[in-house]
């Protein structure tokens, strides 16, 4: 910076001449100072400020303050840089402060709440969160604690209900078992009761000594016949309970069906029934006890024949198909071998459907059936992992289908 005295009217070259042309300074008055930009002989830019000074002379003069523009620019950049640095420093500082305070005020409680929700999700409802403060986060924590309490209470109720339901189901099952046992006992009593009465009566007659020789012989024959009847019933009962374990081996169901159908053809003809079995070209190999399956088929086919008092046709099919096991949690379709026995008989009344497989349940005339056939068939099929499907239309016929999952194949 340079300060010097100038006469405002001095021409360039004269002593005390101003750095800018004197024509610029004609209008300068005492009360103002006048900044003017100008350049010197070397081309350097300067800012000149003129301060008029009141004099008693007729000439106007004053102080000229000159400052190089480069110096001014330098000052400006310095100020900007300093300000920027200051702002950045303040921003960093406040950021740091905000982080520290924010973490203490929000981050930590939030972390605890997050951890709590994670525990809830994992099923741990115990250990409530306590935030010692009076804001929204504390409210959230309280709601979370309330929710946990409610959840725990509901869970407890559900557990209790579950236990009660299982107990009720168990009781029902027990009652059902008792009913079946009762029916079984009544069935045995009824089936064995009559022959026992006859045996006892005949023995009494013989013992009375009033019979002729012929009559004694006749009574003995009757006793023998009744004893045989009882033996048959007991054998069937044993079949039903099946003390013997099945001897499973891979067999082609087409052969089993074909053999059984041949065995039953004579009986069918006697009842004017026709057995139709056309084997598929596809083998249907399943691991089963062939003898037991022959029994299943015999029972189903004999039932079909007996369902047609006027005679008719019994269609038997063996095929492979996919099916879903009933009363199973598994919804998947599984590959099965199916044996279908379809008759054109009287059908099954809707009210009898649910008793179909119960032991000693029969709709046949007394002496025609013991009511064990279908329950034996059912037991054997269940033991092989299969099931029996029944459809029936009154006066049109019934269709029994035995499903055996192919998974039982070795």
């Amino acid at each position, binding site marked *: 910076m340079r300060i010097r005295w100038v006469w405002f009217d001095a021409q360039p070259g004269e002593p005390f001449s101003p750095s800018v042309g004197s024509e610029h300074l004609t209008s300068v008055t005492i009360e103002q100072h006048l900044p003017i930009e100008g350049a010197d002989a070397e081309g350097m830019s300067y800012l000149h400020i003129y301060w008029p000074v009141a004099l008693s002379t007729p000439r106007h003069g004053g102080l000229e303050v000159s400052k190089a523009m480069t110096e001014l620019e330098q000052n400006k950049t310095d100020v900007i840089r300093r300000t920027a640095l200051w702002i950045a420093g303040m921003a960093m500082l406040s950021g740091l402060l905000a982080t520290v305070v924010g973490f203490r005020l929000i981050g930590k409680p939030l972390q605890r709440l997050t951890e709590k929700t994670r525990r809830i999700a994992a099923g741990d409802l115990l250990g409530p969160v306590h935030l010692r403060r009076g804001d929204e986060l504390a409210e959230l924590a309280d709601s979370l604690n309330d929710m946990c309490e409610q959840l725990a209470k509901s869970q407890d109720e559900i557990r209790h209900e579950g236990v009660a339901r299982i107990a009720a189901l168990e009781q029902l099952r027990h009652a059902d078992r008792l009913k079946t046992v*009762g*029916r079984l006992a*009544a*069935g*045995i*009593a*009824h*089936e064995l*009761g*009559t*022959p026992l*009465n*006859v045996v*006892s*009566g*005949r023995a*009494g*007659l013989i013992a*009375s000594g*009033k*019979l002729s020789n012929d*009559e004694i012989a*006749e*009574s003995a024959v*009757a006793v023998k*016949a*009744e004893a045989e009847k009882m033996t048959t019933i007991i054998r069937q009962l044993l079949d039903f309970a099946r003390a013997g374990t099945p001897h499973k081996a891979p067999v082609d169901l087409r052969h089993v069906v074909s053999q059984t159908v041949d065995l039953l053809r004579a009986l069918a003809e006697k009842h004017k029934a026709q057995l139709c079995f056309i084997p598929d070209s596809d083998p249907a190999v399943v691991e089963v006890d062939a003898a037991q399956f022959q029994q299943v088929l015999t029972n189903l086919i004999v039932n079909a024949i007996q369902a047609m008092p006027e005679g008719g046709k019994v269609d038997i099919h063996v095929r492979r198909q996919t099916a879903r096991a009933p009363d199973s949690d598994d919804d998947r379709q599984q590959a099965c071998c199916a044996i279908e026995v379809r008759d054109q008989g009287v059908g099954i009344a809707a009210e009898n459907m649910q008793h179909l497989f119960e032991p000693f349940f029969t709709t046949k*005339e*007394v*002496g025609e059936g013991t009511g064990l056939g279908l329950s034996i068939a059912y037991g054997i099929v269940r033991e092989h992992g299969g099931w029996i499907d029944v459809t029936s239309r009154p006066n049109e016929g019934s269709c029994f289908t035995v499903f055996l999952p192919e998974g039982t194949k070795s």
Partner: protein
Amino acid sequence: VKSRILIVDDERSMCDLLETDLRLRDFAPRCFTSADEAFEAFCRDDFEVVLTDLKMPGMDGIQFCSRLVANRPDVPVIVMTAFGSLEPSPRYAPGLTTLSPSPLSWNCWR
């Protein structure tokens, strides 16, 4: 003159036994395995006592008894029950004289 007894039981072996036994006891029994046939005979001929099984296919012992009583209320009817029924035995039916558990106690025939 021997007393005529009508016997109905769907089991042939039981019929035979009752017939032999009652004949030895000096009665004149006639046996039927079907209630319908027995009813026809009952209407045609004169019987002093009727002995019927309770559980029979078609018409059961109680229905049979009611039909008999509608025709001849004076003839006593004995219904025999075998054990083997879960349903409680009927305590009363029109015209039912005695409900007897079978086998019968034969001494009552003296």
